[in-house]
């Protein structure tokens, strides 16, 4: 009885005075876990055309990731490997691994509305920003926290600030990126949340550049396994170029 009461009290306390850092860290852990293997469909929409890719992604910890395109045939085999702060790309036509120069990191990744930075600096939001809880509201049966992330002084980041809406089941519902003039530049919207593997997961997310209304990139995650050990050799340059089964 007492234990439940205390537990209830701490829980109530946790909700009444939630810590922005902790909310964000939990959401990040939920998304990436200790390791993850996901199958993703990516749709790039432009005014004149739309392209669809299928890709597989593996992550290890907070820093390492491998993404491999499996369809369409024209793009299959292209792969991106991120280790720490370094990023390499493999192109099957060239049959060559190229390390991305720092100057290219803000370029579009595979023609999408994501940049290489989005891959390489995915955990910057945790390490390079300070976080502040702006609002707490109820929506769709969940508590939704609005958190403002402002770059630490001198942090090597491109955004002026980032504002996130995070649900109490640790799913990011919306993420708005502001440029250095504090104007909203792009918004990542979670369109669908479902159970993936063992957890609630944003299975459909769309990135909208706010200066181009006809343009977006949607990411549909169809299959996911979390905290399943990914072999160490996956995150190597030789595996990037010559994938082992």
């Amino acid at each position: 009885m007492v234990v439940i009461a205390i537990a209830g009290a701490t829980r109530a306390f946790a909700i009444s005075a939630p810590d922005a850092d902790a909310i964000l860290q939990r959401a990040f852990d939920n998304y990436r876990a200790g390791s993850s293997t996901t199958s993703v469909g990516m749709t790039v929409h432009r005014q004149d055309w739309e392209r669809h890719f299928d890709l597989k992604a593996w992550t290890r910890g907070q820093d390492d990731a491998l993404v491999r395109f499996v369809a369409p045939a024209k793009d299959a085999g292209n792969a991106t490997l991120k280790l720490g702060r370094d990023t390499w790309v493999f192109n099957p036509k060239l049959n060559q691994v190229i390390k991305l120069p720092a100057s290219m990191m803000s370029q579009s990744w595979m023609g999408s509305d994501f940049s290489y930075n989005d891959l390489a600096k995915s955990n910057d939001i945790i390490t390079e920003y300070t976080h502040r809880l702006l609002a707490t509201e109820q929506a769709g049966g969940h508590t939704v926290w609005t958190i403002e992330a402002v770059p630490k002084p001198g942090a090597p980041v491109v955004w002026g600030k980032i504002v996130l809406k995070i649900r109490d089941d640790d799913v990011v519902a919306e993420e708005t990126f502001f440029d250095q003039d504090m104007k909203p530049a792009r918004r990542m919207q979670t369109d669908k949340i479902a159970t993936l593997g063992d957890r609630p997961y944003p299975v459909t997310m769309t990135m909208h550049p706010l200066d181009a209304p006809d343009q977006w990139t949607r990411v549909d995650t169809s299959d996911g396994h979390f905290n399943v050990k990914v072999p160490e050799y996956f995150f190597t340059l030789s595996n990037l170029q010559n994938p082992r089964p």
Partner: protein
Amino acid sequence: MLLALAWRNLWRRPQRTLLSLLSMAIAAALLVFMLSFQLGVYGVMKESTLRIFDGYAQFQPDGYAADPGLDRTIAHPEALLEDAVRIHGVTTAAPRVNGFAILANGERSYGASVIGVDPVRERQVSSIAATIRDGRYLDPTDADTAVLGASLARDLQVAVGGKVTLLGAARDGSVAADVLHVVGIYRSGIPDLDRSILEMPLSRAQDTFAMSGRASTIALVGPSLGGDRALPALGAIARGNRVSLLDWGALEPGLRDALTLKYVTTSLLYLTLVAVVAFIILNTLLMSVLERTREFGMLLAVGMKPRLIGRMVWLELLTLALAGCTIGLAIGAGAALWFQHHGIAYPGLGELLEQFGLPPRLYPTLTPLSALLGPGAILLAITLGGIVPYLRVAHLTAASAMRGA
């Protein structure tokens, strides 16, 4: 009658008149020559900057300047090219595909602009072909070749005969990947260009970046484009094809602002020169008027109207100014023309200009504007200033004037 009187009056004091003439002539000659020289030098500056890469004007897809990207293209560049070169004053129109890619050589990789060019036309538009330091420029028969800037080549540690891997995004969202053979390395003298631009054959670039038949920009040059006479016709073509025409100022706003600033600062200098000369001449004339008060009194006494005397004095001034300015104009224009023919050598400048594919000497440019502006300003200043002695004389009365002085 009055003019004859004025002319005779001037030569009553030949020494003073000659000195006045000389000061005006020198000032006018200086103004003519300096302005011509300035026009010539600025012309060279403009040309040397624009001829490196931009061209004198460009056709671009609407909105390209603010947000260049492969999704903004000119769909049918050939029609535009033909229309453009038909305009009097346009010699060459060069289509380009402007991509952006990672260039890699082994472990080394850098981001750079990849420009697809028509080798024959590009050679006439941009001086990059003339600044090849190693190897050769692109040939019309080339397929998988590239020329790149010296700094970029050094960064990539690639030399003529080597290979460069290109990886970027194509227009349709697919991966643009290619391997190119380096045939030439240029040194344009502009660090930014030497570090950031690789040129490859247009058709290959169109394939690589999924731009088949399309162009990103069309660069235009021609002898009289600099004089902006062809621009209205080009603007009409641009509107008809729903693309934008950017003149040199829009292509190089920094250069335009710098030149405007220089014109403003030097015109202050010229203004000072005009003012000083005008005051010297007016002062001299006012002195002579004061000296001649008794004489004017006499003229009044024999029945000449004060206004007529005033006009005579003014005419003296005008004749003097006209003569001085004409002499100055002749000297200044003569010097400008002579140097326009022979050029002015400036130590150290020759090599720099030759690097840009330009003649190694500076040439003044004598135009109607540069010839007439300075003398005209002096003439105007003196004519207006002449009101002072005129008023003074016009208010004289016979009695006081004869008593005075």
